[in-house]
């Protein structure tokens, strides 16, 4: 094997690949099963964007908090939420991460620092300011990462949070996942100042744009930004330019896309392909090793799906449980 | 126009915070001949309703207090006089009567009505009344405080120096109880006496306070001049577990009121204010833990852990045992444990809070006992 030229060890590279592959497989499976009508409600898939969640989360521990979006499966998996519990949650089962009461848009696991996917766009930003404040008050060097789509970055909550984080010098990283579309609306039209870095600059914090389909680009930039935040350097914004392989939600015909757009991005901007080509080409990881991971992930998702479908529904009395601490 | 043969009956002052009372009804008609100790009327305060007993003899010549009307403390509500005192004199007396300025108004400005002492068991709140005669210490029971001696302290203070304290975990004393046993409480009481410079006192203990007093008499006999045990714990195993559990567990008026009613023969004596005051006490930080620790230590599983009767019988400390016949918390027959060595009085028509329900009789017994033992 060649000398490893990457900023991560082989085990870490394998872990990153496994995470990205798990997200991809999880989402692809949901895509198929949703079309069959197996899944209640609606789901927003993260496929295509895996490098962003993974590149960032590789720098975090359970003490660091993230606030996610409606498109949260990838963040959950990368932050270490149990895949079985996630799948069961999406199927509305009692074994789900939220006992079947949250669903796809509200998967959370606070023990892993995952403060919840969020159905309200932009709502995670103030929450993560609070998480970062808690870390600051405790002095535990924890950081808070909030993810926001290009569209929700227009929310007042997000902009107010940039200001609050700067004023309080909180260890927060605002990650803008720019997949070009706010639901169906082009980012270019909906975001007036055109640049997230400009927005960050306006609030007195640095902003960085990286190619969100390049795991290493995200990993490296996030590493610097997170380390800066941990060291008390304050908040920063990270824009990841990336691509969404599916619609806003499942069932979206994506008629707003240009002809050939999807085919083109799948061919040239698939972050999983980019990563695996890079590591195989460098001779650090063998293609067979990646294929072995693919098989394991496939089995895991298959098992999680089978288990979720077989899991018990919540009991009727669960309807009234956990509204308050007691009474 | 002082006429010594005309004796005013005034609105009594029960306890430090009482400033007024409502006449709820007269138990004697005008013209009745009154003896000392006769029940004259009922007065309701924001804390409690009780009977005003006659302290003098005479004919009830005038009844001035209208039922349902609130009068300030020391307001003239009736006049006693011998039959031969002319009506004109009585009318003149009434028209000349002026409510003495409340001494407490001045006191409240001059200094605190309650005191605190720093002791090894923490801050202890206490009240002190009287300056002469023997020293008396009043020790309240489980969940009580020094206001349990509302009708006792001023009566005894006429001829004694009376201290009443809040035990640790109670009233406004420190809420932490380092040692929630009778010995622990006894040490706290002795620590308090040290802090206020009292070497020896006549102990008057109610319920758990009786057991604490007995424990002290056994452990430090030199400091206990006599024992007056009122509805005392420590004389038998039995105790109403429901009361203890109910008292500890209650967090609302609805829960607490029926519990408190078991303390009295006359359930009607439990006023809104009494319940509210106890709830306010129970809500204070540390109280719940203190009460639970005490009940676990002293009354676990509904039995009293310490029975001290034989030790006290042997110790020969001059002892008075008083009980309300209708006590539903600790049965009155526990008094029999000391029947051979102590003066025993079982009072009819009273429950566990006999010193409140039959205050006049209990006070008379206490005065007599303390005078004899001193």
């Amino acid at each position, binding site marked *: 094997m060649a000398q490893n030229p990457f900023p991560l060890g082989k085990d870490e590279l394998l872990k990153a690949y496994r995470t990205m592959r798990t997200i991809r497989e999880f989402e692809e499976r949901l895509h198929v099963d949703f079309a069959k009508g197996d899944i209640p409600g609606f789901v927003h898939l993260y496929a295509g964007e895996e490098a962003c969640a993974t590149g960032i989360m590789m720098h975090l521990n359970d003490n660091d*908090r993230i*606030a996610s979006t409606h498109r949260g499966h990838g963040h959950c998996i990368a932050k270490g939420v149990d895949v079985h519990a996630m799948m069961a949650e999406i199927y509305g089962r009692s074994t*789900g*991460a*939220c*006992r*079947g*009461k*949250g669903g796809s848009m*509200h998967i*959370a*696991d*606070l*023990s892993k620092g995952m*403060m*919840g996917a*969020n*159905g*309200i766009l932009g*709502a995670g*930003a*103030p*929450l*993560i*300011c*609070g*998480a970062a*404040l*808690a*870390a600051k*008050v*405790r002095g535990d060097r924890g950081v*808070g990462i909030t993810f926001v789509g290009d569209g929700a970055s227009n929310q*007042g*909550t997000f902009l*107010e*949070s940039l*200001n*609050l984080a700067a*004023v*309080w010098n909180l260890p927060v990283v605002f990650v803008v996942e720019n997949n070009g579309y706010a639901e169906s609306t082009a980012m270019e039209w909906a975001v007036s100042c055109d640049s997230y870095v400009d927005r960050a600059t306006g609030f007195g914090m640095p902003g960085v744009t990286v190619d969100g389909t390049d795991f290493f680009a995200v990993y490296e930039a996030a590493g610097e930004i997170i380390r800066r935040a941990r060291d008390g350097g304050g908040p920063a914004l990270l824009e990841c330019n990336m691509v969404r392989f599916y619609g806003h939600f499942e069932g979206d015909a994506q008629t707003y896309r240009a002809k050939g757009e999807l085919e083109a991005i799948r061919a040239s901007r698939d972050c999983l392909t980019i990563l695996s080509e890079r590591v195989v080409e460098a001779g650090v990881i063998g293609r067979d090793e990646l294929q072995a991971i693919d098989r394991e992930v496939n089995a895991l998702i298959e098992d999680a799906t089978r288990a979720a479908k077989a899991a018990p529904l919540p009991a009727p009395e669960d309807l009234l*449980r*956990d*509204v*308050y*601490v007691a*009474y | 126009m002082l006429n010594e043969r005309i004796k005013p009956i005034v609105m009594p002052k029960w306890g430090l915070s009482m400033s007024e009372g409502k006449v709820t009804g007269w138990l004697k008609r005008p013209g009745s001949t009154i003896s000392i100790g006769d029940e004259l009327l009922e007065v309701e305060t924001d804390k409690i309703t009780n009977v005003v007993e006659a302290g003098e003899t005479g004919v009830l010549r005038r009844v001035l207090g209208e039922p349902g009307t609130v009068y300030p403390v020391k307001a003239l509500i009736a006049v006693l006089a011998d039959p031969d005192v002319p009506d004109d004199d009585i009318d003149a007396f009434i028209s000349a009567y002026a409510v003495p300025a409340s001494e407490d108004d001045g006191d409240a400005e001059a200094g605190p009505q*309650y005191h605190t002492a720093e002791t090894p068991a923490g801050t202890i709140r206490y009240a002190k009344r009287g300056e002469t005669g023997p020293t008396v210490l009043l020790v309240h029971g489980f969940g009580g405080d020094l206001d349990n001696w509302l009708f006792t302290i001023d009566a005894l203070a006429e001829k004694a120096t009376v201290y009443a304290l809040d035990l640790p975990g109670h009233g*406004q004393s420190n*809420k932490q109880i380092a040692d929630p046993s009778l010995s622990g409480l006894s040490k706290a009481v002795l620590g308090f006496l040290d802090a206020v410079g009292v070497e020896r006192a006549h102990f008057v203990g109610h319920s758990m306070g009786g057991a604490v007093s007995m424990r002290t008499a056994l452990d430090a006999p030199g400091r206990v001049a006599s024992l007056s045990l009122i509805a005392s714990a420590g004389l038998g195993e039995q105790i109403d577990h429901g009361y203890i559990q109910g008292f500890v567990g209650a*967090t*609302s*008026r*609805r829960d607490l009121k029926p519990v408190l009613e078991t303390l009295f023969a006359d359930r009607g004596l439990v006023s*809104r204010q009494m319940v509210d005051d106890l709830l*306010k006490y129970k*809500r*204070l*930080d540390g109280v719940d833990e203190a009460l639970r620790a005490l009940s676990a230590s002293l009354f676990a599983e509904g039995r009293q852990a310490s029975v001290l009767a034989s030790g006290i019988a042997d110790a020969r400390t001059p002892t008075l045992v008083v009980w309300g016949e209708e006590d539903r918390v600790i049965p009155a027959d526990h008094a029999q444990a000391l029947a051979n060595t102590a003066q025993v009085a079982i009072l009819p028509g009273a429950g566990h809070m006999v010193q409140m329900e039959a205050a006049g009789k209990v006070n008379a017994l206490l005065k007599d006992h303390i005078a004899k033992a001193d």
Partner: protein
Amino acid sequence: MSRKISMKQAINEALDLEMRRDPTVIVMGEDIVGGTGAQGEDDAWGGVLGVTKGLYAKHGDRLMDTPLSESAYIGAAVGAAACGLRPVAELMFLDFMGVCFDQIFNQAAKFRYMFGGKAETPVVIRGMVGAGFRAAAQHSQMLTPLFTHIPGLKVVCPSNAYDAKGLLIQSIRDNDPVIFCEHKNLYGLECEVPAESYAIPFGEANVLRDGDDVTIVSYGLTVHRAMEAAATLVKDGTEAEVIDLRTLSPIDWDTIVESVERTGRLVVVDEAHPRCNLATDIAAFVGQNAFGALKAGIQMVTAPHTPVPFAPSLEDLYVPSADSIASAVKRTLSPKGASPRIAA
């Protein structure tokens, strides 16, 4: 030791004691310290009406001035609560709820349920409510019904200093989000309050006055109006039982129903607007669960269905008065009391 202090002092004291007891308690809000970053004194304001005055000197940076940015800092308080702190966020006037309600009703109120009972959000949002302060339509509302409508929120509205201290301490210790409504016209009202810490449990109404003829239920400022009304009704031989709800979520249904079962008559007084408020809620509950006990139609005394007017002469008509409460009681006592009336 008990002594007389105002409701404002009682709230200050509750915050002080809880910050002393628990290092995870932090207090934030606009100008709660005052003058942060400015050249003048530290602790320049201590809150717009001085409720938090002096706490900065005792607790330093655990008192945090915020930008005028309710959505961000209320959300941050919620997020910090979900991460182990016990933040008390002052929302100066609860009328400002409009700009940050999402953080409260979609986030804080839902975490426990939506995350399957695996999240706690021990946050307190406290602020001023109520009319009578000449503060006009956007600084005077009693928005309590908006909050009681939301499952997961607890709603508290004390009527006096003693309750304010004990309920605020309970709110801080409670593991659910609490909206703590402080009637600005009660801030100066004094009563006996122990210096020590104590917590008043939620869901226990306070019966301020016993009576067998009619039950008057209220909360906040109008409790005092109800007591005034009860005092005047005595002259007619009417003894009113006055119930101060203290907490609106949870609400003490038992005390209300038990009282109505005894009195047979109910007057509910609510400073909120008349539609879908606490008065209608309680009236409906009693109508459904204690109809047999009722001797007369339930009367509701509320603010009118208008914004709060500015002109003092109009605002004085806005808040339910002792007279209007007494009249409502008389309606329940008259033979016609049972007939329906249309409220203003």
